[in-house]
């Protein structure tokens, strides 16, 4: 079941990738090639097989809820594309 360019546009929106028409076309072709190769997965009998999400068996890991020093705000903000008054600056998301 091949993906159409419109399917790929929908995935690109979910993935927050602005792809132009050339890229949509190229990505469609590559994804379809790979997915065709992986169709074999659908033939494997996995009835009753539990999925392995972690290769090392683990349960919840807890620690004491104690205050610890955190990273410095100035150092963190120094990596931000835009910051002001100790805050990250982003484009306006609500109307004026």
């Amino acid at each position, binding site marked *: 079941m091949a*993906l159409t360019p419109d399917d*790929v546009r929908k*995935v*690109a*929106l*979910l*993935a*927050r*990738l*602005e*792809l132009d028409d050339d*890229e949509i076309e*190229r*990505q469609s072709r*590559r*994804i379809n*090639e*790979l*997915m065709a*190769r*992986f169709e*074999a*997965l*659908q033939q*494997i009998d*996995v009835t009753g*097989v*539990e*999925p*392995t*999400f*972690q*290769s*090392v068996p*683990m349960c919840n*890991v807890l*620690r004491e809820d104690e205050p610890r020093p955190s*990273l*410095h705000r100035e*150092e*963190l903000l*120094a*990596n*931000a*594309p*835009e910051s002001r008054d100790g805050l*990250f600056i*982003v*484009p*306006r*998301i609500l109307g004026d």
Partner: protein
Amino acid sequence: MADLHNLTARALGALIAGRQVSAREAAEAFLARIEVADPGIHAFLTVTREHALADAAAIDARLKAGERPGPLAGVPVALKDVLCTRGIRTTCGSRILERFVPPYDATVAARLAAVGTILLGKANCDEFAMGSSTENSAFGPTRNPWDPERVPGGSSGGSAAAVAAREAPIALGTDTGGSIRQPAALCGVVGLKPTYGRVSRWGLVAYASSLDQVGPLTRTVEDAALTLNAIAGRDPLDSTSADLPVPDYTQACRAEVRGLRLGVPSEFLGGEVDPTVAGMTRQAVDTLCEAGAEAEECSLPSVTHCLAAYYIIAPAEASSNLARYDGVRYGMRSREHAGHIGMAERTRDEGFGDEVKQRIMIGTYALSAGYYDAYYRRAQQVRTLIRRDFDRAFERYDLLVTPTSPTVAFRLAERADDPLAMKLADICTLPANMAGIPAISVPCGFLEGLPLGLQILGKAFDEPTLLRAAYTYEQATDWHRRRPPL
């Protein structure tokens, strides 16, 4: 003292501890070697000359004061540029992080510093560790020291090439589907992927969190063991790091292999594997048998599904992990954008390369409503079948032996436009990540002047037995003593 850069980490560390060579002289020797060799190799994205000389001076002062800081004190190291280093740019080979300066150290970086190693710089890699040739780096490819027209493998190609070209005695890489072992094989060095959970992933920029693991690339098995001694162990900052004691891995190298049972899975000796490569693997198994091990062919039928399951699971995890690069808190932001969502979309389009976009797209699709059960959940069920095959094999055998790479290093650009051919480079290495078990690649011969690797796989947390066989093989051969022509 001439040619310090040709010494192993262990030999160099011993000279420094004995104060026959200063840490500063060692650092200068490797920095000089980088100046000579790296313009033709491009193993490094950043060279930290000032840091290295200052840290070396501090080690020399401690030695002069009578301290004995340990076998790796003063030994230079390189870190793959997906490992965070406080105050030192960490790019992941990506435009999107070109100017990112981490405010903290990865645990492995901190642990290597704590035993006195000297950071020479950050090694090139495929963007976000996605690739098998280091051609996906946004800052240009690394070249294979054995033949500059060929790739060094990937994604830790800069780390492998740096060690092979004598630009560093130790480099750390990361391995999600073979990214330490495959470049180690193609560059003729030793590469060790520890058990999942053996080494902390804190400060490793995440690609596929259930598969990623940090490990050493070195010229000898003993140097890999020394490095693992320094970086292994529980870290409260990584809840998946195992709370198990860390043995002295260098002691483990010394034991004999007499009586060890080796399984040789037939799935790795045909198909995509070059028949000559398969033949060299059988010869290496014979060498181990002459040393007293016992070997027989066996089968791991589910490993043939590894590639398909991996290319669902890894992209799915990547699509989630890489969602954080949205142009808000760190990394680049596109200059032109409309609105909040437009900013993220444009930033990610400009900041990520083709391969990263492709994996994000596949992963997003595999996790999207209606496809989760068909792809992601099914791939994780197949992963269970793969694990069961290994569990059964390890009831009979102590170790499994395979080739590391199905072929020698391919030419630059040869596979760049064929994503499937590129991914086949990892067919021998993917299963260890899927099962979470440790695996090592050691040099096992040359084909047309290019090195090849032998892969040995062990039970979870049984690095000592793995190292014991790898060391025995290395001592019985002299492949690791050959030097690339530069």
